[in-house]
C-alpha cells in the first residue's frame, strides 16, 4: 500500500454497483473512489479530480462507455490517464477492439471483490503503485 490513496473515478449508472464497488475498494485497499452516475458527469469530474484510474461501465443510457471514453480522451489533462472498462457483457469478441482503442483492461462484472483491488492496482502506473 502506498502512502497516498489512489484516486479512482468510477462511472456507472447503477447505484448499487457504484456503492458495492466503492465499498469493496475502500475495504480492501487504499482507494479514494469518486463516483459518477453518467458519462457527462464522469468527464467533468475527471477533469476536476484528475484521477489515477478511470473505470467506466460500458452499458449506460445516453452516453455509453465508449462515448464516454472518447470524450475523456479529448480532455488533454487526462488523456494519459489509464482507463478500464467495466462490463457485464460476456462476449470476448469486442476485447480486441478495446485493446485497439487504448483501453488498458476490461473488468468483468460480476467481479471478485477480494481481488478487484489487486487487479486494478496493476493498471495504475508504478508512480502510484
Amino acid at each position, binding site marked *: 500500500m502506498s502512502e497516498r490513496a489512489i484516486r479512482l473515478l468510477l462511472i456507472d449508472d447503477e447505484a*448499487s454497483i457504484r456503492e458495492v464497488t466503492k465499498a*469493496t475498494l475502500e475495504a480492501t485497499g487504499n482507494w479514494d473512489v469518486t463516483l459518477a452516475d453518467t458519462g457527462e458527469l464522469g468527464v467533468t469530474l475527471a477533469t476536476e479530480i484528475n484521477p489515477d484510474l478511470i473505470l467506466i461501465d460500458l*452499458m449506460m443510457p445516453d452516453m455509453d462507455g465508449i462515448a464516454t471514453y472518447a470524450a475523456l480522451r479529448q480532455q488533454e489533462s487526462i488523456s494519459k490517464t489509464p482507463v478500464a472498462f467495466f462490463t457485464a457483457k*460476456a*462476449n*470476448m*469478441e469486442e476485447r480486441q477492439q478495446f485493446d485497439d482503442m487504448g483501453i488498458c483492461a476490461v473488468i468483468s462484472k*460480476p*467481479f471478485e*471483490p477480494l481481488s478487484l483491488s489487486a487487479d486494478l492496482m496493476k493498471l495504475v502506473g508504478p508512480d502510484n503503485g
Partner: protein
Amino acid sequence: MRESVGGSDPDLIGGSPVSRARYLLLTLVVAVGVGVTLLAALSSMSNAQRRAQDAFDEEVGLHALVAEDRIHGVLEAVEEVGDLFDSSSFVSDDEFLTFVSRALGRHPELQSVSWAPLVSEAERTAFEAQARTGGAIGYEIVEYAADGTLVPTNRRDAYFPVLYAVVGDDGASGYGIDIATWPWTEGIMEGARDTGRAKVTPSFQSSTGRQVAILQPLYGRGLSTDTVADRRASFIGFVVGEVQPSVLLGHEGSELLAQRTKDGVAAMVTESLASGDRLTLLKEPGFDDASPEFIVSFDVHAANQTWVLTVESTTSFYATRDRIQPWLLLMLGLSITGLVSGYLIILQRRSTTAEAMVATRARQLAVANSALSREINERTAAEVQAVAERGQLQSILDTTVDAIITIDGGGLIQSFNGAAQSTFGYAPEEVINKNVSMLMPEPDHSGHDQYLRNYQTTGEAKIIGIGREVTGLRKDGSTFPLELSVSEAPVREGTLYTGIVRDISVRKAAEAALADSEARFRLLFESSPAGITLASGPNGIEQVNPTMLRMLGRSEEEVIGKILADFTDESYERPRTGSRALIMSGETETTVSERLLRRANGDALWVQITAAAFRDEHGAAVGIIRTVEDITVRRAAEERLAESETRLRAMLESAPIGMAWSTPGEPMQTVNPKLREILGRTDEEIAGHRLSDFAAPGPQPRDGTTQILAEGPSETVTEERRLLRGDGTAIWVAVTASVVRQPGGTLNGVLRMVEDITERRKAEEELRASEERFRVLIESAPVGIVVSTETESAILANPAMGHMLGIKESEILGKRLTEYWYPGYAQEAGGSRAPLLSGETDRLQYQRLLQRADGAPLWVNVAASAIGTPNGPRLVMRVLEDITERKLAEEALRESEERFRVLFDSSSVGMTVSPLEGGTTQVNPALARMLGVETSSIIGKALSDYWYPGHEQRDTGRNQLLIAGEAEQVRYERLLQRADGAPVWVNVTATVIDDPNGTRLILRAVEDITERKHAEDALRDSEERFRDLFEVAPVGIGLKDAENRLIAVNDELATIFGRSTEELIGNRLKDYLSPTAVLENKVGFARLVSGELENREFEHQWVRPDGEVFWGSGSERPIRAVDGEFRYSIIAIEEVTERKKVEQELRRNEEQLRVLFDVAPIGLTFKDKNNKIISSNPAAQQIFGRSQEELSGTSLKEYLAPEYESQRAGSTAKVVSGEVDTISFERPYSKGDGTTIWARGVESAVRDSDGNYLFSIQAIEDITERRLAEQEIRESEERFLFLFDSAPIGIAMVAPDRTVMTANQALAKMLNTTVEEMRGGWFGKSFPPDPLGAAEPSWSKVLSGEVDYWQSERQVIAPGASAGWVQITSSAVKDGSGRFLYAIRMIEDITAIKQAEVEIRASEYRFRSLFDSSPVGIALVDHASLITSSNAALQEMLGAEAEEIVGRQLGDFRSPDDPRGGGARSATLADDPDAAGYVVERLFRRRDGSEMWAQVVTAHARDDDGAFLFGVRMVVDISERKQVERLKDEFLSMVSHELRTPLTAIQAGVGLAASGALGEMPDKALRMLNIANDNTHRLTRLVNDVLDVERMTAGRIVLERVTSLLSSMVEQAVQAVGAIAAQSGVHVESSPTSGSIVVDSDRIIQTLTNLIANAVKFSPPGATVNVIVTDKPTSVRFDVQDQGRGVPKEQVARIFDRFYQVDASDSRVYNGTGLGLAISKWIVTEHGGSIWVESEQGVGSTFSFELPKHE
C-alpha cells in the same frame, strides 16, 4: 416336516361318533359319484366328436389370438426403434441406443434389443484376425458350427464372414450373424435391408435358449431411402430384437395359456416367400408334418410382412382328446369317486390313529391345559404358514424387475429384493433392519420418519397407493430419479409398507432430450427456408411456418384450415390420387410433386411439395407434413429448355447437313436424316456406333475432337475424314464438332455436323494436279524465275534462270540475287522487297545488270511480286527477262544521238529545234551565221521574228499541219533579214521529231537559197521573154517544116539530143533515131502532113552524137494555115530513158518474186477459176506432203480431212465471182503420208484492170501445232466448266460492270433461276448488299485492284430460293499487268448457320433476360475472380453501375465493417475444387453508404477434365435475417447485462461481508453469508456458462487465434483455480513447458480452468492434480490428472454432454453447472482438436485434449 409335526398333533384327537359319521359320508359319496359318472358318460357318447373339434378350436383360438398379438407386438416394438431413430436426429447414437434398450427392455416379449452395426470390411477382417489368434477384442464372437452348437469362432480352422456383430450383455461375449453357416440368414438380412422392413430369422439355439432374431434395418439419418439402391447405400445396421419362439407362439408369459394344457396342439410360423415356398420361422417342438385331423392356417400381417400361422392337432391331441369316449368319462368319474372315497378313508384312518395316540398321551400326561395347547398349536401352524408364504413372496420379489422394499411401521427395512440391490447398490444384509431413509437424499432423508409418523397418526396419505417421482440415493452417493408406489399391508406386528421403486433416470434423460428435440424442431419449423405445413386430418392445414406464409403472401389466418388445393392455380391439373390418400393408405412413405400455386397478389408460384406422414407411437400415419419449395425459377428454366429442345430437334431433322449428338466418350445418340443419308445407313446400323466406327480403311486424320474440345480453349473443331458408306463407297466428310454446355458450363455433349465434301476433295486433287502443271510451267518457262524468302534467300530457281546466268539453277538456291550483280555497276534503285512484303504494292519492276558466269554482262528486266497467303509466310517471286539485246540497242541509240548532236552543231545548214507551241530552244551556229547574229540571241525567238520587213511570206501556217499531226514534214520558203539588213532567202524544212522523253519537237532545217532565188529570178525574166516559144519549156521543143526539118529548137531539145541548137536546125530528128525505130516514125509524119492524123505520139530510141542511146517520148502536132494547109509542126520530146529503165527493173523484180515464191516459208498456190491448182511452191508441197506434179490440176478440197469434206464448198466460187476479195480458211487436211495437219490459209483473187478474174493465190500456213495447243486449252476449259457447273457451291463470274458473265448450276438452283437468266444481270439482284451489314469493299476498290479477296454475308431475296443466307467469297482475277478482268464469287448457303446464330441469339437472349431479371444478384467471374458481367439485381444491390463492377472482385464492394475485413480481395477460387457450392456471408457497402448483408454462393463451371471455365457468384440479400440475428445478439447482450448487474452487486456485497472486511459478524450470519457467497459464485458461473452455450450454439463465438505461450496459459488456468484448490486442500502441479500454439488463448485457458477445477473438485483433500502439457510436432496435448473417484465406464461417453453430471448430487455437492465440459468440448472442437477422458473408478481420471498446430 410339517407333516411330522402334524402327525403328532394332539389337536387331531377326536371321538368315535365322528368316525361313524364319516363312514356314512363315504358311502354317500361313492354312491353319488358312480351315479353321476355313469350319467355323464352316457350323455357324452353321442357328441364326443363334436366336442373334440370344439376343444381343438378353442385351443387354436387361444394360440392364434395370443400368437398373433405377440408377433404384432414384438415386431412393432422393434420397428418403433427405427422410427425413434429417424425422429431423434438431435440425439447422439449412443444416447439413442441407451434409451432404446431401456425403453424397450420392458417389453415382456422381447428378451433383448441390441444394435448390430454393419461391419465394415476392415473391421470384419480385424475381428477375424483377432478372433483367430484368440485375442480379446472386448467381446468374443461365437457362431454356429455345423452341428448346430455355438462355438467360439477362434476355435474354427477357417473363418466365415460375419456381417453383423452383436455384443452380449456381459460385454465379453456376443455373437456374429454368420452368413456362411446360415445362408438363408443372408437372404433375410438383405431382405430386411432392401425392403426397410423388419424381418424375423428362423429360430436358432443361442446361449439363452431357442430364439428368433428380429432384424429392423436402420438407415443413416437424413439419407434417402426411396429406392433399394438408396437403402443399400444408407444402410447402417440392424436393431436386433431377440425373442424366444415359445413366447411368440403364446406359450409363455400369458396367464391365459399358462393355466391351460398345451397338449394336443402345436404351432408353426412360416413366412410366405415370393417363390411360393414357405420359410419356416418358428416351430414348436411338437409340430410334426403327419397329416393331422385338425389343422388351421391363417395369415398374420405384421411389419409389412405376411406370415402364416399354422396350428394343428398332434398325436397327443388324439391321445388326450380324440378318445374322450364315454368310457373315459366313466373311468374319470369313477376315479374321482375313488379318490374322494380314498381321501375320506385316509382321513378316517388318521383320526383313528390320533384317537389312539391321544388316549395313550392322556394316559401318559395326567394334566394338560387343552386350551393352552390349542393356542400354542394354532400359533405354530400360523408361523409355519407365514414362513411358507414369505418364502414364496421372496421368490416373487427376487424375480421382479422393479426394486421392491418392505419397511415396517418404524421405517426399518424388512425386505430388499434383487432389483433393489442392483438399483441401490446395497446387499440385503447392509440394509435390513436399517432405516429406509438411508436410501433417500436430503430433504427426504431427514423428513421420512416424520412423514411416516404423520401418516400413522393422521392417516393422511401422501404417497400410499400413488406413484410419484422422488429421488433415490445410491450406496455410492449418487442420486437418481425414481418412481415410487407404496402399498401398505397390515400384519400382526403392525403394518408393513411395500415400496415398488422404478429407476426412471433414463426415462427422465430421454424426456429431457425429447423436450430439447421438440424445441429444436420448433425452431427448425419457424426458420426453415422451405415452407412447411402440417395437417393431421381433413380439417386442412393446422400449422404453417412463416416461410410458407411469405411464399403464399398470406397471413396465418388465411391459411389455417385451408388445403393447398385452395391456393393452387386453376390451370394446374391435380393428380387423381392426392398425396394424402397415397400416404394415408400406406402405399408410399413420401410423395414429391410439383404444382402451380397462386400467391395472394396473383403471382404464379411453382413449388415442389414433399409430403410425408408423421405417425403416432403405433406407427399409424396420423397426419401429413409438407415441405414446400419455391421452384418457380427452375420451372421457368425447364419450360424454356423444353421449348428450346423441341426447336433444336426440328432443326436437326431438317438440317441440310448431317448432325449427330453424343455425350463425350459415348456413341452417337441422335442422328439426323441427313447424316443417315450421308452415311448411307439406317438408324439401326448407326445405333451404338461412334462416327469413327465408319472410318474408311487407310490413314485417317486423328479422331481427337473430343480430346481437343476437352482441352480447350476451342469450342469447335473441324476435321476431314474418310468414311465408308453403307454401300461400301468411301466418301470424304468434313466433321465440325462443337461442344454444348450446360448453363453451369459443364460439358453436356458434342454436336457433330457432317458435310459430304467428297466433291470438294476431288476438286482439290485436281487443283493439286493443276499445281503440278504450274510447276512444270515454271520449269519450262523461257524467262528466269526465282522465288525467295523474306530474307531474300532463293528457294526456287528455274532452269531458264540458270541458263541466263550460265550456271546450274541449283547453284542459285540459298543465294541472293545481289550476288550476281555486275561488279562496279551502280544499279538503279527500286528493288526493295519491303513494299511487297508489307502489302503496299503487289508488283515491282526494275532492271538489273548482272554478270554471267562467263563474265559477260546480262541485262535483265525484273518483275517482282509477293506470293503466299496473306497470313502465311510471304515469298517474293522474281521473273527475270533477258533484255541484254535491247539494252545494247539502246546504247547504240545513245551513241547515235551523240553523233546527231555533233552534226547539228557542225552542219552548214541552219537548224533550230522548237517545241510545238513555239519558241526556239536550240539553234546551230550555221543559222546564226546565216542571220549574222549570235546563236544565243535566237534562243526563245521564232523564225518569224527575222522575217524581212514588209515582204509578204507565202505558205504561212504550214507549221500548223505539223502541229495538228496532218503532216510529218513541211517545206516552205522565207525571206529573212540578216542583222546587217541584207535579205536572205531560205528554204525551211520543218519536221516533227520526238525527243527521247517523248516530247514532240519541230526541227527546222534552214537552207540558204538566196543564190538559187536570184537564179530563179533571172529565169523568170527569161521566161517572160520567151514564153511563146518555150511554153512547154521543161521538154525539148522544136518546130518542123513540111520537109520534116527542124526550124527552131529550144535548149532542152538540144540537151536531149546532145547537140547544139544550131546543129539541130535544118536537120531531121529521124536521122538521130536508133536504127530499130526509123520505119515507124516515117509513116507517122507523112500522115500528119497529109492531114490524116491530127497529131501523133511516139516513143523512140535516139542516139546522141556520143553514141548514147536514149529514149524519147514525144508528140507532134501540126500547125496549119487557116485553109488547113500544113505549115509546120511543133514537136515536143521528153527524155524517158529513166522510165524505161524502171520498166526493166520491174521485170527484174518479177523474177525475184518468183524466187521468193519458191523459197517462201508459207505455202503458196495459184489456182484457176475452176479451183484447180496451177502451181504451188515448195512450202505448200511440204505442207500437203505432195509434189508439184501431184498438186497441179487438183483442188485442195480433195485433201480435206474426211470430217471436213463437202464443208464450206463453193467459197472459192465467191472469190471467182468477185463477191468477195479474199476468203480465209482453217481446215484439217490429210497429208500425203496419211497424217492430218491443220492448215490456215487466205485466198485472194487476182484480177485484171477491168476486174476480170485471172487467178487466185492461196497462202497456206501449217497450224497443226497451234491447233493442238488450242485443243488442249479447250479441253482444259471444258474441265473447268465441268467443275464450275458441278460445284456444290454457287459460283459466278462477275464482270467489271458487276453483271454476271456466267454462273453455275448450283447457284441457279440456289436462287431458283437459270444460268441463262442470270447472265448479263446484276450480280446482286438476288442478294443485294446490305447497306447496314458488314462492310464490303466498294466495287471501285475492287476495280482499282486495291482489294482482290473479300467475303461477305448477304440475305437472299429471290422468290423460291433454297438459301436464306449466303456467304460470298470473292476473288479478283487480273491480267498480267494487274488490270482487273473479272471476279470469281463463290456463294455458299449458310442459311443453317445463320438460323443457328439466330437460335443462339434467341437462347442468349433468354439467358440474358433470366440473368437480367433474376432477383438474385449474379456475377460471372473469370479465373482471377474478377467480374466479367453482372446483372441488374447485383448492380442494384451494390448500388453501382455495370461498368463500375466489371473487372473488380465482389470483395471490393465489401464494407469496411465486414467482420471478415472489408474490401479484402479473395484469392482465386478457380483451382479449388471445393469452392463450388461455397457459401459465405458478407457485408457490402453501397456507394450511398447503405449496407447490405448478403449470402454469396460460389459456383464454378468446369469442363470434363475439371478445368475452370468461369465462375458464378450469386448474391442474396439476407439483411433481414441478419437484422433478426442482430436483434438476437442484442437480446443476449441485454440478458447478460441484466443478469450480471444485480449479480455484481450481490457478489461484491456478500463477498465483502463474508470476507470480514466489513467487520466482525456473528458466526451464524457469517455462515449464511458464506452460503450466499458460494451460491452467488455458482449462479455467476451458471449465467456465464449458459450464455456461452447460447452463443456457442448460435455460432456467435468467433475464435481469436493468436500465438500463445503454453506455459502462460497453464499458469493462468492454475492461478484461476488457486483459491478453490487451496480451500479444498488439493495441490495443483503443472510441468514447465516452453513452446507456443496459435489458439484463442482465453478460450483455451477457460477449458483448462474448467478441467482443473473439475479435477480439484473431485479430488479428496491432500490429493494432487497434475497438469501435463506435451508439445508434439503437429499438435499440443494437455492432460489433467486427478485422484478422484473416477468416471463410471458407461458414463464416459456422455460426460461431455450438456447438463450431464456423473452423479445427480454432484451439482449440489460440487457447485457445477453441468455445462463446463460441454463448453470445453465445443472450444476444443472449434479449434479442430479432440477431447476425451480416461478413467478408472476409484483411482482417478485423466481429462485430455489435443489441439492441432496451425501455420
